[in-house]
Structures are given as structure tokens and as C-alpha cells.
């Protein structure tokens, strides 16, 4: 069936493009802080991030199995979802991603992907085709719980880091040494990103292969799928890095090395643990949670609730909004080949339109460094007093 093959190839290509944009989007999560603190040279940081994303993608396949094997139910005669529907879901996810990017809304490419797939499945097959238990247990609950967990962990870790390296007046406290640690902690974040985000695409491609009968139900991703997804995310990460370098020094959140190290360690630990258990997290949300948590761990911090609400709203909106886009695209795709062509045309028009609009100088660094930076602004930190506290002065006098 040549027609079937064509659509499968199309879906795989689209999935890899999605993977590329994911890497492109998220380099900042891992590498913005070490570049900003001068811990790593930009070129080196971007290269390291790309390589570690590549390695990370090979480390585990649990998340991919969650998507390919759990989320969409199998019918009586095998799996019910068709490549056309996956295609529609991907279009929905990509379009929503671009809209949020343009509007500077915090969102999650992972949730856009799930939303699009679920929306497309519901329209194409029906509500009964989605396994809501799996969606709840492995997507929605982790989405809510993981940022909270990582926030608390980052808060404690930041407190610990500051407590252990307490400042003695008149002597250096060595806190600048956290800059070197950040080289490793941010590398771990890049690795963790590869283990979670690259696998989402692997899951989608595997789901497509299963749906079109190339692979048996319940099997994990093939090696070439893993390799191509790893490569796509690594190239995306590398390309995305240049954008960060260009926008450096234009108002990044004030993250201090000790805080940054604590935040990155917590992010990496949480994502790696979750990947291991097959939770499909949004790495951006986890990173945001840890930036907020670690900010609160610093002295003199207050929360800007308005900003926090803005971010939370973006997160909540993503799944249903991408779902609606995916459902719309699926509605068209059900018309047959004509619908698919229509999908491609409409998708291309939206992408081209957004690209054109973004060129007309409306994009600021706010769009480019996006979500994590927003998260950093949730916590307001008053400047630490330069004068030593009374008890410290006494200590010196003694």
C-alpha cells in the first residue's frame, strides 16, 4: 500500500521536526545559566548540551513506551488509531507551540503533543479510545506533582548550599566555586532532557509504526527510531544554542551560582527519576518549578503571585488547547487524502504566517529565553545587605 507508506513517512518526518524544535526550544533551560555566569564558553556549552541530549536519548525507553503502549487503547482488532490521526495530532501540537511561542505564553511542548494526540484520537475514534487512567497517571498527575516536588527539593537544596557555605566576614566563602559545579549540573540537565523529551518523539513514531502494522503491539522503539530521534533533538539543541548566545546579557533572571547549582541538580534528579518510571514530564515545567523553589530558598525572597498565575494558566491551557487544534486537524484528516493535504496547507500557512510575523521585529528576548526566565521573575529577591549582620560583626571582634 503505497499510500499508507507515504503517510507514515510524512508522520515520521513531522515527528522529527517536532523533536528538532523541542531541542531548539529547550537549550536555554539547561545552558543559559552556565553561559551567563561565565562557567562555560557559549560554544562549548552548546556543543556539550547537544552531545548529552544525544546520549540521554539512548539511556532509557520507558517514556516512549508510555506513549506508544499505554495512552491510546487497543481495540478488538488491534490498535484503533491511524497514522492520519497521529499526523493530525502532530499538526495541532506544532501549531499550538508556535502560537504560544509568538505570544510569549509559557507552555509545554510535551503537553501540546499529548493534547494534540488525544484530541485527534477523540475525534477520529471516539472518547473510549483514550486510556484515561494512563493519561491521568503518567501525564496529568506528573504534570501537576513534578513541579511541586522539584520546587520543594530545590528549596531545600538551595538552603543547604547556602547553609553549608556560610559566609565568614572578611573571608571568601567559596560560593563562586559553584560556577564550576554548574558546568556539571547543567550538563546533567541536558542529559535528563534527552532521556525525557527525545523519547516523546520516539513514542509517537513507534505508535505510528504500530498503528500502520509495521510493528507489533506492545513492543518498544526500534533502534533506528531511537537513533534518529536522538540525532534530531541534538541538532535542534545545537542550532537553538546560537540564539541564546545572541541574546546573552539582555536581562536574564538573576540566578546566583549556588542557587543555580541547587536548582539544576534538583531538576536533573527529578527528570531522571521520572524518566526511569515512564512519567512523560514537561522538562520546562520542572525547570521552572526548580527555579522558583530555589529562588524562595534565598534570603529576602517574595513571590509575585500574578506572574506565577500567568505561568500556571499557560500550563493549564496547553493540553486542552492543543487538543482542540488536534481535533480540528483530525476532522479534516478524516476527509481522506484531500483532508491531509488541507492539513498540510493550513499548517504551512500558519507556520509561514507566524514566521513572517516574528520577523517583523515583534520578537524580543522575552520570546527567545522564554519560560524559565518567566519563572525566575516569579520570585522577587531583595538585595542582600552588604553590611555584615550584628552577630557576625561581634564574631569578628572576638
Amino acid at each position, binding site marked *: 500500500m503505497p499510500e499508507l507508506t507515504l503517510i507514515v513517512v510524512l508522520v515520521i518526518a513531522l515527528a522529527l521536526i517536532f523533536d528538532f524544535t523541542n531541542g531548539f526550544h529547550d537549550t536555554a533551560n539547561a545552558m543559559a545559566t552556565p553561559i551567563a555566569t561565565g562557567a562555560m564558553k557559549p560554544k562549548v556549552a552548546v556543543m556539550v548540551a547537544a552531545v548529552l541530549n544525544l546520549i540521554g536519548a539512548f539511556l532509557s525507553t520507558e517514556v516512549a513506551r508510555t506513549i506508544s503502549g499505554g495512552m491510546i487503547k487497543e481495540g478488538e482488532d488491534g490498535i484503533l488509531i491511524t497514522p492520519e490521526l497521529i499526523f493530525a495530532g502532530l499538526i495541532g501540537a506544532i501549531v499550538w507551540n508556535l502560537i504560544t511561542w509568538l505570544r510569549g505564553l509559557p507552555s509545554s511542548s510535551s503537553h501540546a503533543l499529548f493534547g494534540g494526540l488525544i484530541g485527534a484520537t477523540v475525534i477520529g475514534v471516539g472518547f473510549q479510545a483514550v486510556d484515561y487512567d494512563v493519561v491521568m497517571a503518567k501525564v496529568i498527575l506528573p504534570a501537576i506533582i513534578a513541579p511541586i516536588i522539584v520546587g520543594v527539593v530545590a528549596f531545600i537544596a538551595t538552603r543547604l548550599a547556602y547553609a553549608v557555605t556560610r559566609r565568614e566576614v572578611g573571608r571568601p566563602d567559596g560560593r563562586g566555586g559553584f560556577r564550576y559545579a554548574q558546568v556539571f549540573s547543567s550538563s546533567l540537565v541536558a542529559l535528563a532532557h534527552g532521556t525525557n523529551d527525545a523519547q516523546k518523539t520516539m513514542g509517537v513514531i513507534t505508535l505510528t509504526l504500530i498503528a500502520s502494522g509495521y510493528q507489533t503491539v506492545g513492543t518498544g522503539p526500534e533502534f533506528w527510531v531511537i537513533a534518529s530521534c536522538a540525532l534530531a533533538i541534538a541538532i535542534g539543541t545545537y542550532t537553538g544554542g546560537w540564539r541564546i548566545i545572541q541574546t546573552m546579557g539582555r536581562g536574564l533572571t538573576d540566578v546566583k551560582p549556588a542557587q543555580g547549582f541547587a536548582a539544576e541538580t534538583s531538576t536533573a534528579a527529578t527528570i531522571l*527519576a521520572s524518566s526511569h518510571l515512564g512519567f512523560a514530564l514537561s522538562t520546562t515545567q520542572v525547570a521552572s518549578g526548580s527555579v522558583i523553589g530555589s529562588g524562595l530558598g534565598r534570603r529576602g525572597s517574595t513571590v509575585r503571585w500574578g506572574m506565577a498565575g500567568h505561568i500556571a494558566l499557560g500550563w493549564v491551557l496547553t493540553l486542552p488547547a492543543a487538543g482542540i487544534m488536534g481535533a480540528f486537524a483530525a476532522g479534516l484528516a478524516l476527509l481522506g487524502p484531500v483532508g491531509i493535504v488541507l492539513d498540510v496547507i493550513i499548517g504551512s500557512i500558519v507556520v509561514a504566517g507566524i514566521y513572517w510575523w516574528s520577523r517583523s521585529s515583534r520578537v524580543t528576548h522575552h520570546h527567545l529565553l522564554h519560560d524559565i526566565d518567566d519563572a525566575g521573575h516569579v520570585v522577587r529577591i531583595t538585595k542582600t545587605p552588604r553590611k555584615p549582620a550584628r552577630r557576625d560583626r561581634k564574631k569578628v571582634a572576638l
Partner: protein
Amino acid sequence: MIDWLAFVVVAGASLISSALIVTLYSLGLRLMTSAGRSPVVGPAEFTGAITVLTPKRAAKEAKRTRKALAANPLTDDQKKLALVGAYACFALCVGAVLFGVYLIVPALHGG
């Protein structure tokens, strides 16, 4: 159906590993400083701030840090001990990270 235990595992694992890694590294830094070898080339007063230093300024700061560290209440033996302790902390920290990665990659322990 919802595996609440898994969330507890994630929370526990990330808390323990982050706290361990951060504490070990911080302790290493502190011992290093006590030993009179501040690992930093950086400002002595605003150690936390994000500043991309020019080489000239960094050299100046390094000099200042050395000066501040010159007055050290510890004896030479104590300094040596602190330094050994610092390296031990860094080594343990790296070990903890590697162990974590080992646990996660099924290919490494045949599971």
C-alpha cells in the same frame, strides 16, 4: 490504577540525591576555602553575583582573594586535612552522580 507510590519514589529519590550532591559539593567548597585555597577566581565580597569578568578584573579579584585567605587561623596540618577532606567530598559527589546514572540505565546492570 494510579501508582501513588511511584510519585513518592520520584520525590524521595530526587530529594535524597539532590540534597546529597549539593551538601557534598558545598562541604567540599567550604573545606577548600578553609584550607586556604578558594577554588574561585572571583569577587570576594559579591561571590554570588552573575558577572562575566574581564580577564583583567578576574586577576585583580584573584589577588584580593589570595590576600584575604593569607590570614588563616589553621595550622599547616589542619589545612592539609581540610584539603584532603575537600577532595574527598568532590570525589563522593561525582561518585553519587555516576551511581545515579548507573541506576537509571538498564543496560549497565543487566535489567
